[in-house]
């Protein structure tokens, strides 16, 4: 598949502040790609660099194979859905949607057809003559989307488009956006700080922090095999146990922490003696009163633990378990039993187990 947008060694500085720090991202044609990170991580600046509202300080950006250095925003084959919607308040819905086509000198009858089609796609038929100022957030959102896709852009840029909507509407719009993207087959570049949103919608995600790309990959890879502590911590919930590397090959490593040996998968061979962290998701840990719930071959880690806290959250129960290293681990256990069943009680002595492949050893 060819590239829709190629960002190569791009840095953007505003005075002394480096907003985007030497990033390279290759976004494939037709992909739903998310830029995910906390506020101030540089994701919106990256989007603005692609749109042409900012020019990179260093580096190059190509859109559909064409370098766009010096090409102003109004000549780029991309359209943006703004966080604030940015609908023109002095125009009707139809006029808003038609704006891009009018600028492109498309004949009037074709404009009408395409505007109607675009409004239909976002389920806003019949709203053409309305003013945008009296619409709800969700309606404005749809008009903003229609105004962008009506131009058949090669790449659609979306800057936290669902940020201002309430939770339920946001969930519906997530599904709709994904459907529209698949229907039109255009590349979506989606900026969000909501990890759940990024995971449910994206083909691939770039996790950013401090202006740098921390990891690029499919949602599953980012969740299951985080590159570093930031990614593991930002996406979902993770337990961290610090230790020192005592043994490692190119795909796994063993740490020692307070005399306890812990093993996990590693992305590279780690030097012995280096301090590192084992990251393990709460749902990957199993608890049992008897020995060995999982097969006790050498592919598992088994520790003794004591239940120190229990929180019932409906679908699961969250246990806090103290392990011999002194760390407190969170463990999620699905509530499979009958309504009155209680799996563990406080201060129960339990066996704590996980598959080595499910734990990640991350270098500091």
């Amino acid at each position: 598949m060819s590239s829709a947008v190629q960002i190569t060694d791009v840095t953007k500085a505003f005075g002394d502040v480096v907003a985007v720090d030497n990033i390279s991202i290759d976004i494939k044609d037709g992909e739903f790609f998310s830029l995910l990170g906390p506020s101030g991580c540089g994701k919106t600046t990256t989007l603005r660099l692609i749109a042409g509202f900012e020019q990179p300080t260093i580096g190059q950006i190509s859109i559909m194979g064409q370098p766009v250095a010096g090409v102003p925003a109004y000549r780029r084959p991309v359209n943006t859905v703004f966080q604030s919607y940015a609908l023109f308040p002095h125009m009707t819905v139809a006029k808003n949607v038609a704006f891009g086509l009018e600028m492109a000198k498309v004949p009037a009858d074709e404009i009408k057809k395409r505007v109607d089609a675009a409004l239909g796609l976002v389920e806003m038929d019949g709203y053409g003559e309305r003013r945008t100022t009296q619409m709800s957030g969700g309606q404005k959102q749809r008009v903003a989307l229609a105004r962008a896709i009506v131009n058949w852009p090669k790449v659609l840029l979306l800057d936290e488009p669902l940020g201002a909507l309430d939770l339920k509407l946001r969930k519906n719009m997530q599904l709709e956006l994904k459907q529209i993207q698949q229907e039109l087959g255009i590349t979506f570049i989606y900026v969000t700080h909501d990890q759940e949103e990024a995971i449910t919608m994206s083909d691939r995600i770039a996790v950013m922090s401090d202006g740098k790309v921390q990891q690029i990959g499919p949602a599953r890879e980012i969740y299951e095999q985080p590159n570093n502590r930031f990614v593991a911590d930002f996406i979902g919930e993770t337990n961290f146990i610090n230790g020192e590397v005592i043994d490692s090959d190119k795909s796994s490593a063993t740490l020692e922490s307070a005399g306890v040996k812990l093993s996990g998968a590693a992305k590279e061979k780690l030097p012995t003696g280096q301090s590192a962290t084992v990251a393990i998701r709460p749902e990957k840990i199993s608890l049992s009163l008897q020995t060995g719930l999982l097969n006790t071959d050498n592919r598992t880690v088994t520790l003794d633990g004591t239940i120190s806290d229990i929180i019932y959250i409906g679908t699961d129960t969250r246990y806090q378990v103290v392990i011999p290293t002194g760390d407190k681990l969170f463990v999620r256990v699905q509530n499979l039993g009958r309504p009155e069943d209680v799996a563990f009680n406080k201060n129960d002595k339990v066996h704590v187990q996980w598959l080595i492949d499910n734990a990640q050893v991350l270098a500091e």
Partner: protein
Amino acid sequence: MAATTITPRNKIRKSFNERALSWLAIGMFVFLYLPIIILIVYSFNDNRFASVWTGFSTRWYTEVFNDESVRNAFRVSMWVAFWSTVISTILGTLTAIAMERFKFWGKVTYDAILYLPIIIPDIVMALSTLLFFVILGISLSRYTILIAHVAFNIAFVAIVVRARLADMDASLEEAAADLGANPWETFRRITIPLLLPGIIAGALLAFTLSLDDFVITFFMAGPGSTTLPVLIFSKIRFGASPEVNVISTLMFMGSTILVIISLMIQRRT
């Protein structure tokens, strides 16, 4: 219990305060508007002497409309007001856009200096402008009045337009560019229409200020370039006359209408 009981004492004190406030407000209005009402009433006075009422008449209105010096002053006033409005509205709007949207060398200083005409006393403005023209050897005419009016009007237009611009979402202009509008199209189809209420309000303000100005105009006025306020002043030196009342009444009406229109435009958007 949720409802609070109002004791009679509370009630009395509250109504006393309210009554005192409304009397104060009425007093203020009387103080502000009674002189103007008297002026308007006496413009219909039949008597030659302005302060003695003898009966209702519109004869001074007829007289004023037939007075060549008044008609000439009116023409000069309108000419100066019109052109100073046009010029200062264009320059003031562009200044506001430059100050709000662009960064340039010396911006902070320029920002401070721009609003000086609003702060410094009229008489100082008038004297300095007069001195300026004298040093350059420019003889006083309606054109010098025009230049002086443009000078102070730019500041007022810029303030009004800039306030509007500051309220405007900057991403609207980015959205236009994103949809393929070049800078000129963006300016014409987005920026100007959205600023229009501010521009119109600024223009009406400029027009009113120009029409009303006395001090600066008095210093700039050359022979044959008398405006209405200057004419009133020269007439009043020979004693208050019903004619002066008529001109003042008409000017008051004109200014009031302009201010009301300006407020309505600003309020509506």
